[in-house]
């Protein structure tokens, strides 16, 4: 069970102070929910940043409506932010929220429908709607209030907007900082640090705005002190390392820079676009070139052209864009052009769920290219890995002379969490352009028959002149008219994956190396899976997990690891047929992508569990599913 239960949340009295003593907790989940444009996200980011600076583990994730300007007070328009705090590093968004600040009751409904709350969740609700001029709104409010209370939520009505009006004529814009003030009192944040953070956040808006927001902040803290009978204490964790805090897309952008990738060509696509936003502002710091192409196809074509000319290149996209890039991807495989393709996955197929998470592109990445097109596929499972895996991808692309697909997803893209500040190392940068003369007699595809590897001539190298072609070709890059060249080319390109696999180590098992159940996952579900496994292990269950970083080639030793468990379950944010149903049997049931890959690889009986509700898998839902399987 999660650390904070309803009973723990009951206020306690500190006999000495005569007021409530803070309740000590390992972790807590806070949400701020509003109409869009009310500043909830800025409030949450400010609160999260201060909490991280005070040494808490933090995971922040934005609640984003699908529309840019949804109507006010609508369920689908729920906008806001979730901040999960802990006394240890936090790896995921967690289960139901413990404390919610809501600016109206309708957006709250949007979150209730998504199962974001539980009985006992404290809800601090703006109460101006109780006295609204419109009968309809007053009725909606009263009805919702009764409804929420009947569901067991602990609703506390607060006149937040009225309080803010004492300081500003436009309380709708200012109350977000009032909320930060309330939260700072509740969670014992250092108000000086918060004041600094507010000054930083509003630096561009001038001294007047900073001062007003700092006043609102203090007012919020004082209001909470006078009116709320509870406080929470979440101890910081011991950490000496310097830290940075960012989201996964910012980590990708910085990773691109740290890898020495010179050119990124992209076309706007949610949820990958913000990588380019970030690059747009900071890429010049390392002399990089961001090209917004006319379409997804041109984006990868441009990157391939740059790479052919010896300049390291990447393209960043999401599912529909990956589909459009397929033909060029095949060319990069066929002609062995180093290239990093980052796919920030969203829900699919087709336009699907643009702003929501899914791990649905695994098989498209693996098998989406017509013909036999072996390529390297990696998946980042943390925000920190988003940074480091770009560097790894760039090096693999060059060493193995071909495309590398790096999969991340919307969960990593929008999650914000601290991690140790990575260094900037010269050896992580791409080597300078090689313009030395090409060795005489060396062919442009001088394949090593054991590994399939070959050195690559770069335009400008005297004597290296060759014509790259997407046609089947000989080792001289001549169009193949004979029967054996295509077979040889396929073999050489395929061998490279075997050569890479030989350099990899078996994945680490989280938990004991044997037991009743082994969970296998990949990508952003790492934190949630391990948290669920840890809870079950604490209850005495024999369950472990393995998380894959390499999807092609797969890390070695999987069958050997799997052998020591009674059953194997792949867990992910992707579709699989429910096992029961009138039409379902082993012949008809379609499994999750990871199961398909693992079954083919290990020839073992592996089951699937997961969903595609567009939401990250929470530790609680994984826990419940695994527990049911373990007690069956």
């Amino acid at each position, binding site marked *: 069970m999660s650390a904070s239960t309803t009973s723990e949340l009951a206020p306690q009295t500190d006999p000495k102070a005569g007021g409530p003593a803070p309740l000590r907790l390992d972790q807590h989940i806070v949400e701020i929910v509003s109409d869009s444009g009310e500043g909830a996200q800025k409030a949450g980011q400010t609160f999260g940043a201060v909490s991280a600076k005070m040494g808490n583990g933090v995971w922040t994730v934005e609640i984003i409506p699908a529309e840019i300007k949804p109507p006010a007070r609508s369920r689908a328009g729920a906008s806001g932010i979730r901040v999960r705090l802990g006394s240890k590093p936090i790896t995921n968004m967690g289960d139901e929220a413990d404390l919610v600040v809501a600016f109206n009751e309708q957006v709250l409904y949007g979150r209730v429908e998504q199962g974001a709350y539980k009985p006992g969740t404290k809800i601090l609700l703006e109460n101006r709607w109780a006295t609204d001029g419109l009968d309809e709104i007053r009725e909606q409010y009263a009805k919702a209030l009764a409804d929420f209370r009947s569901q067991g939520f602990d609703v506390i009505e607060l006149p937040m907007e009225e309080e803010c009006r004492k300081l500003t004529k436009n309380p709708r814009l200012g109350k977000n900082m009032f909320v930060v003030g309330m939260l700072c009192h509740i969670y014992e944040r250092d108000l000086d640090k918060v004041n600094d953070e507010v000054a930083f956040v509003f630096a561009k808006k001038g001294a007047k705005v900073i001062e007003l927001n700092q006043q609102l902040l203090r007012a919020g803290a004082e209001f909470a002190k006078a009116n709320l009978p509870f406080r929470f204490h979440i101890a910081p964790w011991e950490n000496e390392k310097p830290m940075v805090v960012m989201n996964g897309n910012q980590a990708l952008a*910085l990773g691109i820079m740290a890898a020495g990738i010179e050119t990124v060509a992209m076309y706007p696509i949610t949820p990958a676009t913000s990588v380019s936003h970030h690059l747009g502002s900071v890429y010049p710091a390392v002399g990089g*070139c961001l090209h917004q192409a006319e*379409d997804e196809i041109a984006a990868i074509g*441009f990157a391939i052209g*740059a790479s052919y*000319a010896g300049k390291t290149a990447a393209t960043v996209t999401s599912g529909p864009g990956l589909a459009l890039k397929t033909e060029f991807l095949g*060319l990069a495989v066929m002609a062995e052009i180093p290239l990093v393709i980052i796919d920030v996955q969203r829900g699919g197929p087709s336009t699907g769920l643009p702003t929501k998470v899914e791990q649905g592109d695994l098989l498209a990445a693996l098998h989406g290219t017509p013909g036999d097109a072996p390529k390297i596929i990696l998946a980042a499972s943390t925000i920190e890995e988003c940074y480091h895996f770009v560097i790894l991808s760039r090096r693999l692309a060059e060493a193995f002379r071909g495309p590398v697909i790096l999969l991340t997803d919307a969960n990593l893209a929008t999650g914000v969490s601290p991690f140790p500040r990575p260094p900037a190392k010269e050896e992580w940068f791409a080597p300078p352009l090689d313009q030395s003369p090409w060795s005489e007699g060396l062919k442009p595809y001088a394949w090593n028959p054991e590994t399939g590897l070959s050195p690559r001539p770069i335009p*400008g190298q*005297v004597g290296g002149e060759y*014509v790259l072609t997407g046609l089947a070709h000989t080792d001289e890059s001549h169009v193949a008219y004979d029967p054996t060249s295509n077979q040889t080319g396929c073999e050489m390109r395929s061998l490279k994956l075997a050569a890479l696999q030989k350099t990899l180590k078996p994945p680490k098992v989280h938990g004991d190396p044997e037991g009743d159940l082994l969970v296998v996952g990949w990508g952003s579900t790492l934190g949630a899976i391990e948290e669920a496994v840890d809870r079950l292990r604490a209850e005495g269950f024999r369950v472990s997990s393995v998380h894959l970083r390499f999807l092609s080639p797969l890390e070695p030793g999987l069958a050997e690891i799997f052998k020591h468990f009674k059953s194997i379950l792949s867990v992910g944010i992707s579709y699989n047929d429910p096992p029961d149903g009138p039409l379902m049997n082993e012949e008809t049931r379609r499994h999750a992508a990871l199961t398909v890959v693992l079954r083919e690889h290990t020839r073992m009986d592996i089951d699937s569990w997961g969903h595609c509700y567009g939401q990250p898998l929470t530790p609680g839902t994984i826990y419940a599913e695994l527990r049911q399987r373990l007690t069956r």
Partner: protein
Amino acid sequence: MFGLKSDWSLDVPARYFTLEDYEGGTARWCPGCGDLAVLTAVQRICREEQLPPEKVVSVSGIGCSSRFPHYMGTYGFHGLHGRALPVACGVKARRPDLTVWVATGDGDCCSIGAGHWVHATRYNMDMTVMLFDNNVYGLTKNQTSPTSPVGLKTNTHPRGAWLPPLNPLSATLGFTNASFVAQTIDWNPPHLYETLKAAHHHKGFSFVRILQRCPTYTDHVFEELQRDPSQLVVLNHDEGVSLEPSVGKMFPNHERHDPSNLDEARRQAGREDLIPIGVLFRNEACPRYDEYTAQGLDMTMDERIAGLNRELDRFAI
């Protein structure tokens, strides 16, 4: 070139390139194909300009003419159908030292790759783009192309092409930031050579439509033009193509046309009485995207590391 200077000293460069240095594999085009003349013209320009072969990249899509890079002795990129331009732009983006030639056909450029044509024109990166326009799909064996004349009988329109042909000159001159548009014919080597040379010298995206004979499928389309040059009009100007008098005499119609005049260029492109050949439009003042994409190339490793550290520190807590 080898040569005696005015002080009687002999100028001997360290490397001198002959036509052979620009020759690649043996061309496998049909006998009589107009592509061969274009290949020869480009190789001659490379020699004339003494372009180091390792600094020349020819990029193409897919189609008969897109085999072009294979027959050059330089670096080459024979990519995907319709996608020569994005690749060529990528090659040029961070390698201003490379000379880029693009070979593309009427199907490649004006049909499957038409989106890239619009935008590459607007990017105006320094390269020479040769549209080998034979009015038909040749490699896939006789299908209608966007430039096929009305009534052309092909395997996909055996009763004759239905739609009026797309005019690549008018289209290109309609794209914002177009900086060089010319037209030439494959069957007059001096005009072809001079036009491509002018295109090569232009700093920017030089678009040259080459009326190119396909002896297998559209031989008859250009036959009359070849036999009767009075259907053509040669556009003359100091800023355009200059022909030897002996060559000029082969064409009865000449007009003085100032290529800096965009309205006049559009009129020439759209005229129906005669087919204009020469430089229709040229504007060296158009912004060039390759000057934008090359920014930062001069940064040292230390500067880049410092830049990255600065950005990482902005996220420090």
